[in-house]
C-alpha cells in the first residue's frame, strides 16, 4: 500500500502518522529533531556532540561519572535532579490543568513569587518545630496560590477579561510589590536577596547524611508525584473533571448542556493556582532559600512549554519536566568539562519547545502523506 512513497516519507508517517500513541510519537520525534539541532550547534562550535550529551546525562545522575568528589555518587546527583524537578512538575501541572479548561495560565511565575514570599514571611523566619513548619509552608503555599488563581478565574468569568492580560498585569504587580517589601524589610545586604529562610522551614534537606553519602532530599517530591496521579484521576474519572474538559473544548455547548461554566473556570483556576503556589514554595523554600527581588522565575514560563511538550497530559507533563531538567542540571557539568557556554542548555530547550509547538503541523503533514500514499 505504501509502496510508491519514498523511504523518508514512510519514516515520517511512522513517527507522526495516525495510530496508537500518535501524540507521544510526535513528541519523541520533536525531541529527536531538537537533539539533532543541538548536535549541529555543537559541531559548529567544534565540540563532540556525543561526548556533550553523555556528560549532560552524567551531570544529571542518569549515567555514572568517571570519578566523584568525596561523599558524592551518582545517587546524589540524581537526588539533586529530583530536587530541581519538583517545582517544575508542579508548575507544568498547573499550566496543563488550566489548558484543559481552555485557560492560558501565564501567571505561574507571579503566583510562585507570591506564594514563596507569603510562606517565607509567615513561616520562614519563625522558630517553629520543623515538621509543623514544613506542613505550614506547604499549606500557605497552596492557599496563597489558590487565592491568586481564584482572582484570575473570577475576573475572567465575571468581567469577561482576557486572562492572559490579567495574568501579565498580576505578574508584574506581584513582582514589584514583593520586591518593595523585600527591599524595605527583608533584604540581606550581602546577597542583595531576601534573608535566607531557616532550615526548619525548608522543604529540601541539604547535605543530609545517608549511609556514607551526603545528599539533597526533596521532601515534597512524593507530593508532586501524588499530585500527578490525583489530577489524572480528577480529569479522567470524576464529574468535575469531565465538566472542566467540556468547558475547555466548547464553553457554549457546555453551557447549553447545563454545566456552570463560571464555576468550572473558577475551580480550575483554584486548582491551577494552588499547584503554582506549591511550585513557588518548593522553589523558593526548597531548591533555593531566598527570593531575588524584581525577578520573575523563568521556570514559570518554561512550564508552559513543558506542559505543551507533554501534550498537556499529567503523566506527559511529568516526564517532560524531567527531560527539561535533565538538560538544565546536566549542563553545568558539561560546560565545565567541555568549555561550552552554559547558555547552550537554554537554547536547546527552547529549540525543543519550538518544535513541540508545531507538533500539530507534523501530525497534519503525516496524515496528508498517509492519504497520498494510500491514494496511489
Amino acid at each position, binding site marked *: 500500500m505504501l509502496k510508491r512513497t519514498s523511504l523518508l516519507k514512510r519514516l515520517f508517517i511512522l513517527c507522526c502518522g495516525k495510530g496508537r500513541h500518535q501524540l507521544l510519537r510526535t513528541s519523541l520525534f520533536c525531541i529527536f529533531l531538537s537533539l539533532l539541532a543541538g548536535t549541529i550547534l555543537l559541531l559548529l*562550535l567544534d565540540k563532540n556532540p556525543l561526548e556533550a550529551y553523555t556528560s549532560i546525562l552524567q551531570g544529571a545522575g542518569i549515567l555514572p561519572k568517571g570519578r566523584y568528589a568525596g561523599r558524592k555518587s551518582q545517587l546524589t546527583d540524581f537526588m539533586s535532579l529530583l530536587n530541581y524537578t519538583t517545582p517544575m512538575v508542579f508548575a507544568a501541572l498547573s499550566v496543563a490543568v488550566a489548558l484543559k479548561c481552555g485557560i*492560558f495560565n*501565564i501567571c505561574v511565575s507571579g503566583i510562585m513569587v507570591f506564594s514563596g514570599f507569603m510562606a517565607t514571611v509567615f513561616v520562614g523566619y519563625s522558630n517553629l518545630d520543623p515538621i509543623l513548619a514544613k506542613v505550614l509552608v506547604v499549606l500557605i503555599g497552596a492557599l496563597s496560590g489558590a487565592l491568586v488563581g481564584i482572582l484570575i478565574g473570577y*475576573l475572567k468569568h465575571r*468581567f*469577561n*477579561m*482576557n486572562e*492572559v*492580560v*490579567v495574568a*501579565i*498585569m*498580576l*505578574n*508584574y*504587580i506581584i513582582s*514589584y*510589590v514583593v*520586591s*518593595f517589601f523585600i*527591599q*524595605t524589610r527583608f533584604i540581606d545586604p550581602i546577597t542583595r536577596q531576601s534573608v535566607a529562610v531557616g532550615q526548619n522551614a525548608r522543604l529540601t534537606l541539604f547535605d543530609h547524611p545517608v549511609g556514607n553519602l551526603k545528599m539533597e532530599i526533596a521532601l515534597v517530591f512524593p507530593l508532586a508525584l501524588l499530585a500527578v496521579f490525583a489530577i489524572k484521576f480528577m480529569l479522567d474519572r470524576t464529574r468535575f473533571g469531565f465538566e472542566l474538559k467540556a468547558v475547555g473544548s466548547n464553553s457554549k455547548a457546555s453551557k447549553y448542556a447545563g454545566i456552570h461554566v463560571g464555576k468550572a473556570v473558577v475551580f480550575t483556576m483554584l486548582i491551577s493556582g494552588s499547584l503554582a503556589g506549591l511550585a513557588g514554595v518548593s522553589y523558593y523554600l526548597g531548591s533555593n532559600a531566598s527570593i531575588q*527581588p*524584581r525577578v520573575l522565575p*523563568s521556570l514559570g*514560563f*518554561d512550564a*508552559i*512549554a513543558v506542559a*505543551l511538550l507533554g501534550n498537556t497530559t499529567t503523566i506527559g507533563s511529568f516526564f517532560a519536566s524531567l527531560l527539561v531538567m535533565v538538560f538544565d542540571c546536566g549542563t553545568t557539568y558539561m560546560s565545565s568539562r567541555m568549555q561550552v*557556554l552554559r*547558555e*547552550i542548555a*537554554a*537554547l536547546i*530547550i*527552547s*529549540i525543543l*519547545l*519550538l518544535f513541540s*509547538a*508545531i507538533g*500539530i*503541523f507534523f501530525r*497534519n503533514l503525516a496524515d496528508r502523506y498517509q492519504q497520498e500514499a494510500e491514494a496511489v
Partner: protein
Amino acid sequence: MNTIIIEGLSFSLPLFIIAIGGIYSEGSGITNLALEGLLGFGAFFGGLSYAVLSRSFTGDPTTLIYASLGFAMIGGALLALLHALMCIKFKANQVISGVVINMLSVALTAFLANQINASFFGQPSNKFLLEVFPKTTIPLLSNIPILGAVFTDFYTFELIIVIVALFMAYLLYKTPTGMHIRACGDNPHALAAAGGNVQKVRFWSVIASGALSGLGGMCFAYSISTTFSPNIYMGFGYLAIAAYIFGSWKIGPTFLACILFGFARSGGYVLVQKLKLPSSYGDLVLTLPYIVTLVLLLFFSSANKPPRALGEVYDQAKR
C-alpha cells in the same frame, strides 16, 4: 515638571512604537505575545552591529548610531519571520508560539552575546557597549511654558519614532493596504473573496511588527542603559501589549495609554525623589501602569473590541 515630561516621553515613545507593532500583528489577526522577545532580539542585533561596525568604521559615530537603529529593525523582523512561519505556515497555537519565541529570544541572545564576545572580541561579557544617543533642543518651541519641555533635551530617536508612527498610522487607516490588514483581522474570508491574499497580508504584518519592536527595543537599550545586556528583558513588551489592549487596538488611544504609562512612571520617580523616600519605593511606582490597566479594564472590558478573527488560524474551507 520638565523632568516628568522629558523622561516620560523618552519612555512612552519607544513603548508606543512597539505597541504599534502589536497593533499591526494583532490587527491582521495574529496574536503577538512575542513583542518582548522581538524587542530584545532587535536590540541585540542593533547592539551587535554597532559593536562590529565601530571596530572598522572611522567616520562620524552618530552615523553608526542611526545605522544601528536600522539593524535593530532588521533583527526584530528576522525573529518575527519565525513567528510568522510558526503561526501562518505551521499553524501553531499563536499564544504558545509567542511564549516560545520569547524564551528562544532570551536564550539565543544570551548564548550569542556570550559566544561572540568570547570568540571574536576576546572578552568574557554578555554586553555590547553603545554610545550615548544624541540629544537636541528645538530653539523657539522649547521656550513655550510647560509644553516647551516636549521640545527640550529630547533624544533624536524620539523624532524618528514620531515620523515612523505617523507613517504607520497613515498606512493602516488611509490606504488600501491598511484596509486589507484590518480586514484580515476582522473578516479574513471577506478579504479572500475580494481577491486579497490573507496569508501574505498577515505575513507582512507580523514582519512589520517585528521591525517596529526592534526599533523600540533599540531605543530602550540606548535610553535606559546605553548597553545591550540581558536586562533589556524587563517586561516592556508586555507593557506594550497592555497599552494597545487598553487602547482597544487603535493607534490613537494607544498613544494616550503609552503617554499615561510613561508619565505615571516618571511622575512617580520624581515624587519619590521629592518626598525623599528611599529608592526602593520606586518599585511601588513601577506597579502603577499595571494597576491602572487592570482597574480600567475592569470597567471597560465590555467596550474593548479585539479584532474579531484574532488568534484564529485562517482556514479557507471554513465559513
